[in-house]
C-alpha cells in the first residue's frame, strides 16, 4: 500500500494524463450519451440560480444536472488527489519560464499555484482584481461567447472533426499568447508586482 501511494504520488507524465482525458469523451458518450464540455456548467448554474427572465437562461436546467454533478466531481477529485496522493516534491518548471517569471516577480514554487498571486490577502487589491475578478470574468464571458472551452471545443469538438471547434481552439491559443507576451507584463507592474 505504501509503495502504491509512493508510486501514485509522483507527477503523472503527459502521455498518461492526455489519453485519460481523451477517454472522458467515449466514457460520457457511452455511459450517458452526453458530450464532454465543462464551461456549460457555468451557464446551468446561472439558469438555476439567477435566470432573471433572460432567454439565454430560460430552459430546464434540471435536465443538465449531470453536468453540474460532473464538475462537482472534478472539485472532489482535486481534493482527493491533493489530500491523499500529493507530490511531496516541488513542481518542476522549465528553466526559461522560471527566468521569465522571475522578471515579473514570481519566484515561489512551493505549490502548484504561485503564492505571490493566489492568496486571500490579494483579494481586495489590484492583484486580486486582475487575476481573480478580471481573469475569471474573461474566462466565463469568453467561453460562453465561443460556445465552449478547452474541453468542449479543443477536445470534444476537434475529436468529432468539427472545424468550428478548431477555429475556436486557435483563437483560445492566440488570446493566451497575446496576454502572456503583450499584456501580462504591463498589467502586472500596474497592480504592483
Amino acid at each position: 500500500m505504501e509503495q502504491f501511494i509512493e508510486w501514485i504520488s509522483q507527477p503523472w507524465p503527459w502521455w498518461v494524463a492526455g489519453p485519460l482525458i481523451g477517454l472522458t469523451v467515449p466514457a460520457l458518450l457511452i455511459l450517458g450519451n452526453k458530450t464532454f464540455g465543462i464551461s456549460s456548467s457555468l451557464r446551468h448554474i446561472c439558469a438555476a440560480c439567477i435566470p432573471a427572465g433572460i432567454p439565454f437562461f430560460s430552459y430546464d436546467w434540471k435536465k443538465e444536472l449531470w453536468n453540474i454533478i460532473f464538475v462537482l466531481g472534478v472539485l472532489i477529485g482535486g481534493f482527493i488527489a491533493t489530500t491523499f496522493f500529493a507530490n511531496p516534491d516541488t513542481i518542476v518548471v522549465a528553466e526559461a519560464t522560471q527566468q521569465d517569471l522571475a522578471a515579473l516577480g514570481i519566484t515561489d514554487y512551493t505549490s502548484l499555484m504561485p503564492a505571490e498571486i493566489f492568496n486571500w490577502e490579494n483579494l481586495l487589491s489590484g492583484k486580486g482584481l486582475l487575476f481573480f475578478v478580471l481573469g475569471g470574468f474573461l474566462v466565463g464571458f469568453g467561453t460562453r461567447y465561443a460556445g465552449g472551452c478547452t474541453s468542449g471545443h479543443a477536445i470534444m469538438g476537434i475529436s468529432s472533426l468539427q472545424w468550428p471547434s478548431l477555429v475556436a481552439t486557435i483563437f483560445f491559443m492566440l488570446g493566451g499568447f497575446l496576454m502572456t507576451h503583450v499584456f501580462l507584463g504591463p498589467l502586472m507592474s500596474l497592480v504592483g508586482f
Partner: protein
Amino acid sequence: MLATEKNKNTTPVECEAPNLQEKKNESLLKYLIIGILFGIVFVKAEIISWFRIQEMFRLQSFFMYGVIGSAVIVGMISVQLIKRLNIKSISGEKINIPKKEFRKGQIIGGLIFGLGWALTGACPGPLFAQIGSGFTVIVVTLLSAIAGTWVYGKFADKLPN
C-alpha cells in the same frame, strides 16, 4: 393507472416510484465518478498549475501540448470507433454528437477566453479542481466566471455573432 398497466406483468405498482428515484440517483452517480477521476488526473498531471499554462503560452515546455494533443488523438479514435462500429450507449440509444455551427463568437469569444486563460492559469475544468485542491481564493475567480457567463447571456442578442 397507466403505470399499473405497463407494469402489471413485472413489478408491483407500489415499488415503481422508489425504483425510478434510485435509477435517477444511480445515473447521476456515474457522472460524479467520472468527474472525480477527471479531477484526480488534473491535479496529478499538474495541469491545474498556473506555471504549466505559462510554460505552454511561452512555448517553453512540450507538456501541455502533449496532454491536449494526446487527449484529442484518443478522443478522435474513440469517436471514429463509435461511429464506424455503430456503438450504442449503455441504455441502447444511438450516440448523438450535436453539430457545432460556425459563429463569429468562436473567434471573438475564443480570443477573450484565451486572454483570461493566461491570467487565471485555468480553463473552467481546472478552476473546480484548483478549489478542491485547497486554493480557496479561486472561489472568487469561479464566481467571476459565473458573472461573466451571466453578462454574456444578458447581452447575447446584442453582440456580433
